[in-house]
């Protein structure tokens, strides 16, 4: 099959900054991304939430663009901007009319060159981040479920197990020295990739990258902490109280194979067999057929965007008249069915067509009104993790080559109780009733 291909220019500047340019002149818009290979997984111990707090600080001022200038210069060019912190990368990105490309690159280079922030900025953003945590986690039904609830149960290495949004005490303890140390260590050109996608010619994109970033000195790259997990020997379980929601919930996470292996490709399709929308086996069995659950969804989140231990996670909200154990055994029956009988050739073909279609959508899709986010994200991760942005053009092949027996084999090998963690999140009122 001759798949949809992306033409790109890939080069590395002498300071180690990787540059990927993808020209596309169909609209006079350009998306620029700066990805740093540091996320919340490897933030300093005792400073939970710091990688994300730091991301906020990157909008607080640099040598020639004081606080508010960065945002103002992008918005007033007719553009949008944002940043986000992930497990293994942190990104900063802008979409602008292409006549603002120079300006965007100047701004990104200015803050890579010299962050200029003070105590007042830090206090301000610490307050903002706390409200972010409240609005997304502490004041929301099922807030942080399961992405914050599962890791401390599932993992033993602090890197994988800590609170990624940050304990408030740790956020309070963070000071300017931490900010500058983190910046000097990780925000160096040799730990980053610059992406320019859209209305630009390939050679112009590279020349502009050289012009704005070429003289930023490389940093001494510190060795990254070891994020490997000790081997898991038995099922792990935990409980979290639900303060607002009305339904009992649970999340089941299985450790998944190493990325870019044959098992990983098979696992991704198995994930789709289980979680692929209303046709997925879990939704079909638990919501449509047995009608135990109100929601049953999940999967491997951002499958191309992580670079360390991760899980395939199922999230279930079930009706109160079914106990947690009964719900879990219905879930286990779905897993057991695949382990015993595998999937049909017809189902496998359906999964592959849908996977290919979804992959194209990822390549084309935007985020928050900003075009080409999906393609940018894949290019960045393949560059930082594999030094091969071209993987966007070949990664699909591995998934389309998966065979039926491989799906059944990974189901047996990875979907074992001893390879999983479960978090139960029951409403406070229901727990009290059960206890009485």
């Amino acid at each position, binding site marked *: 099959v001759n798949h949809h291909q992306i033409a790109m220019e890939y080069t590395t500047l002498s300071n180690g900054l990787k540059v990927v340019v993808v020209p596309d002149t169909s609209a006079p818009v350009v998306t620029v991304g700066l990805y740093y290979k540091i996320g919340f997984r490897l933030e300093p111990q005792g400073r939970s939430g710091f990688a994300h707090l730091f991301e906020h600080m990157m909008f607080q001022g640099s040598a020639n663009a004081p606080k508010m200038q960065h945002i103002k210069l992008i918005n007033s060019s007719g553009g949008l901007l944002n940043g986000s912190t992930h497990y293994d990368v942190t990104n900063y990105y802008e979409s602008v009319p292409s006549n603002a490309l120079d300006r965007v690159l100047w701004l990104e280079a200015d803050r890579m060159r010299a962050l200029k922030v003070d105590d007042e900025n830090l206090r301000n953003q610490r307050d903002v981040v706390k409200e972010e945590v409240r609005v997304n986690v502490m004041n929301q039904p099922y807030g942080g479920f399961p992405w914050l609830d599962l890791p401390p149960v599932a993992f033993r290495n602090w890197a994988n197990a800590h609170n990624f949004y940050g304990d408030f005490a740790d956020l309070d303890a963070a000071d300017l020295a931490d900010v500058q140390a983190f910046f000097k260590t990780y925000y160096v050109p040799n730990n980053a990739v610059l992406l320019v996608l859209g209305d630009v010619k390939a050679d112009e994109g590279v020349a502009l990258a050289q012009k704005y970033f070429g003289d930023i000195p490389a940093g001494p790259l510190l060795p990254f902490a070891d994020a490997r997990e000790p081997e898991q020997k038995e099922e792990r379980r935990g409980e979290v109280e639900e303060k607002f929601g*009305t339904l009992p919930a649970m999340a089941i996470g299985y450790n998944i194979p190493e990325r870019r292996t044959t098992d990983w490709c098979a696992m991704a399709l198995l994930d789709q067999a289980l979680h692929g929308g209303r046709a997925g086996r879990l939704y079909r069995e638990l919501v449509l057929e047995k009608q135990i659950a109100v929601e049953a969804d999940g999967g491997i989140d951002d499958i191309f965007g992580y670079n360390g231990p991760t899980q395939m996670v199922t999230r279930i909200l079930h009706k109160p008249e079914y106990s947690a154990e009964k719900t879990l055994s219905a879930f286990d029956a779905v897993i057991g069915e695949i382990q015993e009988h595998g999937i049909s050739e017809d189902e496998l073909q359906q999964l592959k067509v849908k996977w290919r279609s979804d992959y194209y959508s990822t390549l084309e899709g935007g985020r928050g009104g900003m075009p080409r986010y999906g393609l940018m994200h894949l290019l960045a991760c393949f560059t930082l993790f594999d030094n091969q942005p071209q993987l966007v053009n070949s990664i699909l092949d591995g998934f389309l080559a998966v065979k039926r027996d491989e799906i059944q084999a990974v189901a047996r090998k990875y979907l074992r109780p001893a390879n999983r963690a479960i978090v139960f999140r029951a409403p406070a009122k229901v727990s009290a009733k059960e206890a009485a």
Partner: protein
Amino acid sequence: MATRTAQLPTEAPALTPERPVTWPKRTKTRLSNGLEVILAESHAIPKFHGQLSFRSGNAAVVDRAPGLAEMTATVARTGTKQRVSRQIEEDLRRIGADLSSSAGADTTGIGFAGLSELADPLLGLVNELAREAAFPEPEFERERRQKLEEVKLDRTQPSFLASERLRKVLFGAHPYGIVAPSEAQVLGYKRTDLTQVYQEFYTPENALLVMVGDFDVPAMMRSIEKTFGAWAGKKPAPKATADPAQPKGRRVYLVHVPGAVQTQILAGCHAITRKHPDWIKIGLTNSLYGGAFNSRLVMNIREDKGYTYSPRSGVNPLRQYGYFSISAAVRNEVVAASLTEIFYELDKLRSVPVPEPELADARNYLSGIFSMGLATQDGLLSQLATVALNDLPDDYLETYREKVRALKPADLLGTARKYFDSANMQIVVVGDRTQIEDQAKLFGDLEVFDAQGNTL
């Protein structure tokens, strides 16, 4: 400060000359059965996006039961004369397609996306759902039970509670005053209520089909004729509706959520629809007030004071009426301080002309982000559907930017005075009354409700 060598300009580079924005060619047709069709090509990926919309939604049948159009759309995908639910879902996966069906206040829609090479089977399925939905009794019962749990869950969401109360206050007896059914109303749904809505709404005369993607327009038009050509049905008759409430004076509505660790503020007043000649003016005024990251409200209560993570304002255009609203989730201690700043910024915009450089920035922002919609299939689809569903002029997309760029400080001052009705703003706060009632009542007569809507 960590400084590295700096040899580059210390000033931000100027903008280079703009490249023209060219909106793609649209092909508009009306089939003989009344179905309006709009197609545009976009070849970035070998896929296409589509939307079959009906110009009727929950508001048109709220007298029968709130949320009835939404329930009809939900159950419509669970079975047709030819396919049971499981078959529909597997067939979608077989052709690599996504499909959703839902209804808002004014519109019902079937959204879909799929591979270009498999467009015909997807169109066939959309056609079946629009014309031959079977509403199987067991599927209806299951979805109704499901909806009951959703309705309970909604009432645990601060943002839902806030918007439900604001809509009630602004619209009163008008259908827009109710955003969701109660549990009892869900239990009262009957299968025949749904089939009746289906027969009335899902007709070609009431429908708009927009598709954007990697296809050849004439060929796609032939497929559409073949698939939908024999469909027949009239537009539902328009209905008279009660006038919306016109609340006067600032009033405060506190929805009490015991134990809330934050307060959701939502304030609003009546404004205008997209069809109104002032629409672009209010859009720019809003973007300057609280509609952009770089706006005054965000700079004030987030970047200066740190009260909140995501403050924003917006104009919400329903088909018959529109309203302006301001929202922020703030920490409990600063509810009064946040409201003070919200009103300070409103009143400032109503009193002092916007300085020309700030206005120029806002004009560039709004006209720039407008053309981002060009760059993806679903972005373009949503622009085309918005124009058609709101009966906006054909050149709306082409002329929007120049209209934005023509606006002057006096236009914004006039717009703020006319529509940012500070004196009659209705203020909803969702949070723990023991923490926030004293602060909230400083801003007007205060009523307290529980999450179920009962007065406390």
